[in-house]
Every structure is written in C-alpha cells, then in structure tokens.
C-alpha cells in the first residue's frame, strides 16, 4: 500500500504550551489509522494543522508526495482533505441538502433545490449513508447529523477523511453504525484518520494506531499485533494505575433523596422518573453517555430547572419547589459542567466570584450592604489554600486559565462546607495535575462525612472515585451498582440501555 498522507516533524507552539512537538504520521491508502491519546495529548492540534485551521511552526505535511501549505480549511478541502469535527459544523435551521452543498452550490444564481436533493440522494446511496435530503438538520439525531457531516466531506470529493473524536456524542447504537460506515469506506479504498481516546473503539476498528502523549507521537503500531494494555501504557507513559487510594468507609444517613423525578425541557421529557439517594460520606457516581438526561437531572436537583413531577428531598425536607437560593443556603453546592456559562461571572473580579453563592449572607453582607474586608479576606484565604494563579484576588475571572477558573469554582463550592456537593464534569478539559487536585478534594469531602454526587462522562473517573454508581440512559436510571464491583463491561451495557440479568 502506498503512503497517502505524510507528516514529518510537525511542531506547533502556543503561548506557554508546546502543543505538538515534532509529530510524525504516515497514512496509507485504504487504511483506518487511529490516533490515540489522552485529552490534551495534542491530537486536536495535529488534525487542525492538517485541515488548515492552524499553521504549523515547522515541519511538513504532504499528500501523495506533494508538500502542502494551507492557510485556511478551504485550501485543505480543495486538496481533497475532509474533516468531521467533534463539534459539528452544521446549520440546524437549514436542510440536509442545503448544509451539504453550502459553499459549493452548483449553478450561478438560482438555488437548484430539486437537483441538489437528487444529487445528495445519489451520494447517500453510493456511500450507504441513508438520509432524507429535504429534512431540517435541527430535527435530526446526533448520529444522523454526523452522517450529514460525512456526506459533506464526500460531496467535496475528499480523498482523505479525518474523524475527530466521532463517537464522543453518539449513543452506542450510533457508534455501531458509524463503525460499519467506516468499514465500508475502507472497502471503497478511502483512507481514514480516526481520533479517539477510547481504547476499545480504536482496537476494534483501526488497522494501525499512532499513539500521542504530551504533544509527541510515541509510537505507531499495527492494531492486530498489540494489546489494549500495551496501548494504554503507551498512552499514559507508565503502568496505568486507575485505582485512587480510597479508604473503605460506611455511608451514613441519606442526604439527598430523589423520588420519581421527571424533568421536561420544552416538550421533551429529559428525565423520566428517576429515584436514588446519596448518603453521608459517600460518592455517588452518575455514569451515562452525554445527552441522556444527567445534566437536566442535576439542574432539577439544584433548582435551575423545574421538576415536572416527583420529589427532591434534602436532609428530610422537601425542596422540590424551593428556588436556587434556598437550596444553596440549605447546604447544596454545585460545580456546573459549563463553567463559563454558569459557574462564573467572567467579568467579575475573583473576590466577587468567590462569594457568588453567598454574597448576600453574613459575614459578606449585612442589611444589603456588602462588606469588602470580609470578602477580600475570604478571597485571600481561598486563593491561597486552593493555589489559584495568578494569586491576585482582584484579577478578572476571564483572564484566568481554565484550570484556575475551575479551582475558583471548586474553592467556592467546597469552602461553603456543604452537606452535598454536586460535581458535574468537574475535570473536563483540565491537565493531570488539576484533575488530581480536584479528585483529592472530592475524596476529602467524603472523608469528612459529606455527600458527593459526581456526574461525569468519563467512565474511568466514575469508576475510580465512586462508592456507588448509578447509570442513566434515556432519562431513566438503569441500575445502581456498588463501586468496587462494577465492571466496565457492565457499565457499558447499562449506558447503552441493555438491562443486566437480575442478580440476587
């Protein structure tokens, strides 16, 4: 097989970070080539350079022996490189056909609706990607939207297909369908670059794997001749120790009881009758694939979304109808998953963000007047003990790095000495050091007899921290398993909606 895309010594530097350090990659015709690496290993930077979104500082990219220099995705598309982004580049208000032809419409002035739809219909048959060209993209499921993205690539006559974390947002069934699509494309001789941090998928679908770690390509191996353990070791750079040191501990009284909770957003019911409880001194992990209602559930517990029916009981009191403020003061802390949108007021100083939840309470305020000294002292204390950098309490939150912003939120929520901490995706996008720090804090709360509800899309995080694990699928709680015993396979099945055999 001949080499199709070749990358040599590609380097990309961002202020303070060496995102890609002399990266090498060789893609052969007709292969599925996986790029495997942890979050932040530099996978996205690499593909963005291939696609012309970033320009490399040094190194070369060549396609069929011809060296390429892209300054925009347009040029990459013209050269025959197609990419499906992790976050789709689609326009929900337009139809499938409109989305696909956009930017390369046939004809001059008039938009040829019928003709375009027919062309897309043919195209979707050719690649076995069935879709209705006249449907509105906003009405499609995530899996179908991804099809539109792939069709968009082939409509532009791509010779190479890059899939950036394509399974992140898919349901297991959709993942299965995607894998079939990829295999069919391989049969048609189309080379695919497949980016992932999920070992099992990589193992299953790819011909060869290039492993990235800390901005470097560590190795390229034939998938068939390697083991998951070996890949994991390459990826992490050490023997994987997933187990967090977590002393055994018996849970106390229930702090949070959720009873048959139903949450609707618009017309759609996102949570359909969920019941569970979180007890003192335990971490309850909620596992699930994104979009299965876990975040709506959390928003209903914290009061950001109204419950349609069911009950939320906190320390014996029914708080189903209470507003956010009442729940907060009652002792619920919350680390929201979208820290920019919910957790911080980015244009406020750190002092103000540190008291975002308690600004109206003593000692920070009295009779409606805020006490600057108390607020500043509080900020100093938190900034110190959580090592927030820069260590300037009057800095504007917007100017902090993601990890430090998350520390501000964590510091605020933990320092409130809550009875219950709800942490939604608390480590998303953070580096290893920050993740460790946050995990330690969650365990500390547990040791102090507080209740923790951890919601995460990372199964490893859930498995290493939780005392009990609840699995949510399609708005329903599939099962609650003991943390030490649940296996990845069990959880995986539950997350995909497969019920386990009743055991005991």
């Amino acid at each position, binding site marked *: 097989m001949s080499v199709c895309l070749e990358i040599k010594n590609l380097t990309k530097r961002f202020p303070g970070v060496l995102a890609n350090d002399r990266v090498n990659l060789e893609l052969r015709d007709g292969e599925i080539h996986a790029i495997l690496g942890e979050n932040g290993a530099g996978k996205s930077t690499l593909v963005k350079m291939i696609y012309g*979104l*970033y320009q490399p500082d040094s190194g070369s990219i060549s396609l069929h022996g011809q060296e390429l220099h892209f300054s925009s*995705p*347009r040029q990459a*598309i013209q050269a025959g490189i197609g990419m499906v*982004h992790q976050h*789709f*580049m*689609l*326009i*929900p*208000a*337009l139809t499938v056909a*409109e*989305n696909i032809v*956009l*930017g*390369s*419409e046939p*004809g*001059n*002035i*008039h*938009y040829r*609706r019928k003709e375009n739809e027919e062309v897309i219909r043919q195209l979707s048959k050719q690649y076995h990607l069935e879709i209705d060209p006249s449907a509105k993209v906003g009405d499609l499921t995530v899996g179908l939207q991804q099809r539109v993205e792939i069709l*968009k690539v082939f409509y532009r006559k791509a010779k190479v297909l890059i899939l950036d974390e394509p399974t992140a947002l898919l349901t297991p069934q959709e993942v299965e369908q995607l894998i079939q699509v990829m295999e069919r494309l391989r049969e048609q001789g189309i080379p695919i670059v497949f980016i992932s941090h999920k070992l099992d998928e990589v193992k299953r679908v790819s011909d060869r794997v290039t492993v990235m770690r800390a901005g470097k390509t560590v190795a390229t191996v034939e998938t068939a001749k390697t083991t998951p353990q070996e890949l994991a070791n390459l990826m992490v750079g050490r023997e994987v120790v997933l187990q967090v040191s977590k002393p055994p501990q018996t849970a106390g009284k229930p702090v949070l009881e959720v009873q048959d909770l139903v949450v609707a957003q618009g017309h759609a019911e996102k949570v359909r009758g969920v019941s569970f409880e979180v007890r003192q001194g335990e971490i309850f992990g909620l596992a699930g694939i994104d979009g299965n209602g876990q975040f709506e559930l959390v928003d209903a517990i914290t009061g950001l979304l109204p419950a349609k029916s069911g009950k939320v009981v906190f320390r014996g009191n029914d708080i189903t109808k209470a507003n956010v403020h009442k729940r907060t003061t009652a002792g619920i802390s919350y680390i929201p998953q979208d820290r920019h949108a919910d957790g911080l007021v980015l244009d406020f100083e750190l002092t103000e963000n540190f008291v975002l939840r308690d600004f109206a309470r003593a000692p920070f305020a009295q009779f409606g007047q805020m006490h600057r000294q108390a607020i500043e002292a509080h900020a100093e204390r938190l900034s110190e003990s959580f090592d927030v950098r820069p260590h300037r309490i009057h800095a504007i939150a917007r100017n902090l790095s993601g990890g430090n912003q998350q520390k501000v939120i964590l510091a605020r929520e933990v320092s409130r000495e809550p009875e219950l901490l709800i942490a939604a995706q608390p480590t998303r996008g953070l580096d290893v050091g920050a993740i460790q720090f946050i995990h330690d804090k969650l365990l500390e709360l547990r040791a102090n007899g507080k209740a923790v509800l951890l919601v995460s899309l990372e199964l490893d995080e859930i498995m290493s921290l939780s005392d009990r694990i609840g699995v949510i699928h399609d708005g329903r709680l599939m099962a609650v398993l003991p943390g030490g015993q649940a296996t990845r396979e069990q959880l995986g099945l539950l997350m995909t909606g497969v019920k386990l055999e009743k055991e005991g």
Partner: protein
Amino acid sequence: MFWHILAQPELWAATLAMATPLALPALGGTFSERSGVVNIAMEGIMLIGAFFGVYAACLTHSAWLGMLGGIIMGAVMSLIFAWVTVSIGADQVVVGMGVNIFAAGLTTFLLNMIFGYGGTPTSTPHLPNIHIPGLSQVPFIGPVLGQQNVVVYIMLLAVIASHYFLFHTNLGLRLRAVGENPQAADTAGINVWNMRYLGVIIGGMLSSLGGVYLSLGLLNSFEPNMSSGRGYIALAAMIFGKWTPFGSLGAALLFGFSTALSMYLQGTGNISTNIIQMLPYALTILALVGLVGRSTEPAADGIPYEPNK
C-alpha cells in the same frame, strides 16, 4: 361607525402608503440580521436617505437622481457601520445607536448649513404617483392599489425580490448560513465578512429608500428627525414578521394601518390627535409582547465573528 371607516378605500390606500416607510427598513433589517448583524441603525440610515435624497434632488433637479443619491449615501453610512461592527467586531447595538445619533445630528446640521433655517425649498422635485391603467379604474381596489407613489410599487417588488434572493438563490443561502453559524459557513469556504457586508449594505440601501420615500414621496421636504421612530418600529415589524420579507410586509401593513387609522381619526376631531398618534407605538409594543417568544432569530444574530474560537 367603525365599519363605515373600514369601508373607505382611502383608509386602505393610506395604510399601504404608511406601511411603505416601515416595510422598506424592515426588509433592510431582515437582510442585515439574516447575515448576523443586529441593525438598530435603520432609524439613522432613513434620515440619511431622506436628507440626501432631497439634497441630491435639489442639486440635479431630478427626483430620480435624488432617490439614487439618498440610496448611495445610505449605502455609504451602512458601509461604515459594517466596517465597525463586522470587521472590528464592536457592539452592534451600541454602534447602531451611535449611527442614529450621528445621523440625526448630521442631517439637521447639514439642513441648516446648506438650506439655511428656512428648510428645504418647496420647488424640490417630487417622486411621482403612478396610475396603473385599468387597475386604477376598478372600484375600491383601484384607489387602494392603482394610484400610489412609485416607491410603494418599488417596495412591493423589493419584497418579492428579497424573498426570491434569500430563499431561492445560492447567494441567499450563503447569507443565511452566515447568520446562523458563521464558523460552519467559514469552513464550507464562505467568506463570512463579505456576506455580512452584503447584508448590511443591502439593508442600508433599502432603509434609506424608506427615508427617500418620506422626504421625496410623502412630504416633498426634509424635516429634522422626520423618521420619528419608524426605524425602531421597522425593527419590531421585522421581528414580528419572523425575519422574512413577506412577514415584514405583513407586520408593516399592520403598523401602517394603525398610522392610517390615527390619521383618519384625527380628521374626525373627536379625540385628541396626540392620543391617537400614540397608537402605532403602542401597537408595536403589543406586537412584541404577543409574539417575540415564539419567533426565532438567526442563531448567530448580533455575535461578531472571530475565527479560531
């Protein structure tokens, strides 16, 4: 009594006449916002069109060239607005307000500077009314549709042309794509900035035509602040019309009807004219309250586009 009023063809003729200076800027706003630029500068751009329309008409002794002059100056003003909002990424609402204050000052300043304190000359040429042979003889329909100012017909044509442009051409598709998701459009190879400039400038030309109609079609002179809030009402008409040309026309007709009705009622002398004149403004608020929640604006409306973000 009320039915009697409604049976007057003059009322409906006036409705159409008064809807025109709302429909044109509403159409203009539709172009601008469909491309993703919130445009509250229509009020100011109408004034620019109205003033320079009269000025060019006086200079050239031709109402047609006056119209052209007004539209060109409206386009120039929009170009500046587009530069600041699209290229530099400044706050669109604040800059829009700046345009409005600037235009109000500039036109009054130039009015006094060029024409002195006596106002624009009465000899200013006028955009003609058109009698459509045949149609103007039909009872009821004739007086309503058959003998309006030429700009009214241009407006009706513009609505149809805009609908065709936005929803049935490749360029229209691109313009809408940019207003919905500029990043997606960018990766599809569309120049986001060009599309937004296009939307804002077409919008400015239509808005300034609305102003030209006020000064050269209706009044035959320029008065300070003669747009009297129509740019804002047009904004409401655009929202009410769900960012579509025909919807904008429909909403403009509704507001135009209230203006026509208030003009008609003023003639009857029962109620204070000042109270009646509040009608279109009050109706605008009512329309917004009753409908906004249910209409969806272009997804990227008002957000400056910064790539790599």
